[in-house]
């Protein structure tokens, strides 16, 4: 356990140089495989198959969602801040999943219904064997209980994905940048 935890810490290094490698065309086989990986991931999460999702994660995963604030166009300052909505590694994601799967977690029981629309996928080669940088637009529609209102959340995701020799892919890093500074849903008992 301790060793895995250490890997997660070190992997923060890999976010350097994101999107600087060769851009893959949408006609390339590897692009299509990665597109399919994101569609598969969305379906697995929409079906509340959290254990299935866990299998799509690299044990070195860094999963973050910064708090963002409205800035002026030419302020030169980032929309992102140091505060996080999510700041996760593999073992903390496992903790969250076990809570939903095995305990009386009222926030997720009955489960919230979600539909993830993933589009605008772009892929670059990244430094390192089998590593790719992938950005995508996410539309998450969330329905809770019998409420006619749905929560909508849109975000850009910056993913680093590792494709192994056998063609299987794992998510190594994800940064989620929401389009809202005040998040319009009551909790993140869902993954993005």
């Amino acid at each position: 356990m301790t060793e895995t935890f250490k890997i997660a810490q070190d992997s923060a290094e890999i976010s350097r140089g994101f999107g600087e490698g060769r851009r893959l065309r949408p006609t390339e086989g590897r692009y299509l495989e990665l597109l399919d990986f994101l569609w598969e991931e969305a379906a697995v999460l929409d079906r509340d198959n959290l254990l299935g999702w866990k299998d799509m994660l690299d044990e070195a995963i860094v999963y973050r969602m910064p708090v963002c604030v409205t800035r002026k166009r030419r302020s030169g300052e980032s929309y992102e801040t140091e505060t996080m909505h999510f700041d996760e590694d593999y073992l903390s994601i496992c903790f969250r999943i076990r809570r939903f799967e095995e305990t009386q977690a009222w926030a997720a029981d009955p489960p919230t219904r979600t539909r993830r629309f993933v589009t605008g996928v772009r892929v670059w080669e990244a430094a390192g064997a089998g590593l790719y940088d992938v950005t995508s637009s996410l539309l998450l529609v969330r329905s809770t209980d019998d409420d006619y209102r749905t929560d909508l959340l849109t975000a850009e995701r910056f993913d680093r994905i590792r494709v192994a020799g056998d063609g299987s892919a794992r998510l190594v890093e994800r940064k989620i940048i929401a389009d809202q500074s005040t998040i319009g849903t009551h909790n993140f008992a869902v993954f993005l």
Partner: protein
Amino acid sequence: MTIMEAVGGGGAPRLADGTSLGDLFDLDRREVSLRVHHDPEIFEMEMERIFARSWLPVAHESEIPNPGDFVRRYMGQDSCLVVRGDDGGISVLLNACSHRGMSLCREEKGRAANFKCPYHGWAFGKDGRFMGAPFEKQMYGDQLRQEADRLRLVRAKTALLGGMVFANWDENAEDFQTYLGDFGWYLKAALERTNRGLEAVGPPQRHIMRANWKLLAEQLADGYHARALHQSAGDMGTLGHNANDPASWGLIGINVSTPGGHTLRCIDMRVTYNFEGMSAEASPAERLAAVPPPGADAAMTREFPQNLSEDQIRLLADTPPLVMGLFPGTDFFTLMSVSGSEDGSHGPVMVARTWIPRSPELFEMLTWILVERDASDELRERTKKTTIRNFGISGYIEQDDAEAWQGIQKVAQGPIGRRLTSKYQAQIGIVKPDDFGGGGDVHAGFSRDDAQWAWWRRYAEVMTAQEARGA
């Protein structure tokens, strides 16, 4: 007919249907009608009577370290700017141009030499003073110069606690220390214990909750809900070692309330979280060094005597403040908790929260993460991560709290449902251990409803007070 018109000759204000506001509180039985969570008239009264006149947190001063740094926040429904001045002082200003009322500032955070209105270009200094207007001579001659004082931005009174900036629009409001009363002693022990003090990791998380703001505010002193609502935390092995032991659920300790509606829950470390198996015979300083309070390390505990009294240090060692609620709707939460990781480690939760009422059925929640300025990188990271995983929008503990707040709100939406009352009959009364150094109304023992009811008593007092028109 408006509420103020209905007040008439005396007594509590009446709502449009003739109900006296006082009838919504049964002070003898200690019950409150759920109607208080639904009624738009009550909501508007709260904005005037409570949020326009209370001390409210707007920022942590570390968010705006340099002259000209500002953040935009809300006090109740009013947008405000929190600005660091050239002299290092902090001004809290209504974010509204004195000319036509346009929102002056359109970003949430930035640095400015002054604030210029996008509409006609009137400009204001970092302290809110009127500086000038375009074509001022042609438009106004010297009229604006002469009226400059009248044209300054509306300015709130300010005060600091643990580096958090509190503000109050009411220039006649009691000063901040009087507002804290006996509570200041506890808050300073928890938040002003080290030489360099706390800083915020960054701006607060912000998210919405489809519930009335009071459902969170009144819950702060409620220890009782932990066993059922946070059952999952027990199932995960995070809260306690024994699901049937009240101490494991943080239910044994000392609750404190004040007539001003502040509420505090202290849990008894000696029976609840004996992480290191420390002997109760060890001195408070020894125990604090072995198990430092949330967010501190052993070296910092050696600074405590420079900042705290012996009684305050004993408070931190024996019965540390867990959740510190300030009337109307603010809290500081300090807790040693499970890190929210399968590595089984513990970590500190250090959070300041406040809630902005948006409508009777919706509030916005702000969550700041606090760390000691002198924290090592490791402690800082652990504090950030543990806090996020326990509290705030993704926190596994707070996720479940949201279910209760929203669940009660659904009931209050129905005409039959809102005839129900919330009930606070479990009272222990004033029970103060002989050697306990803190003031206020002390309720030691099993955590019951005393402090929660004190919040409601204060709320009822503010809402039913007879007041002069236009006050």
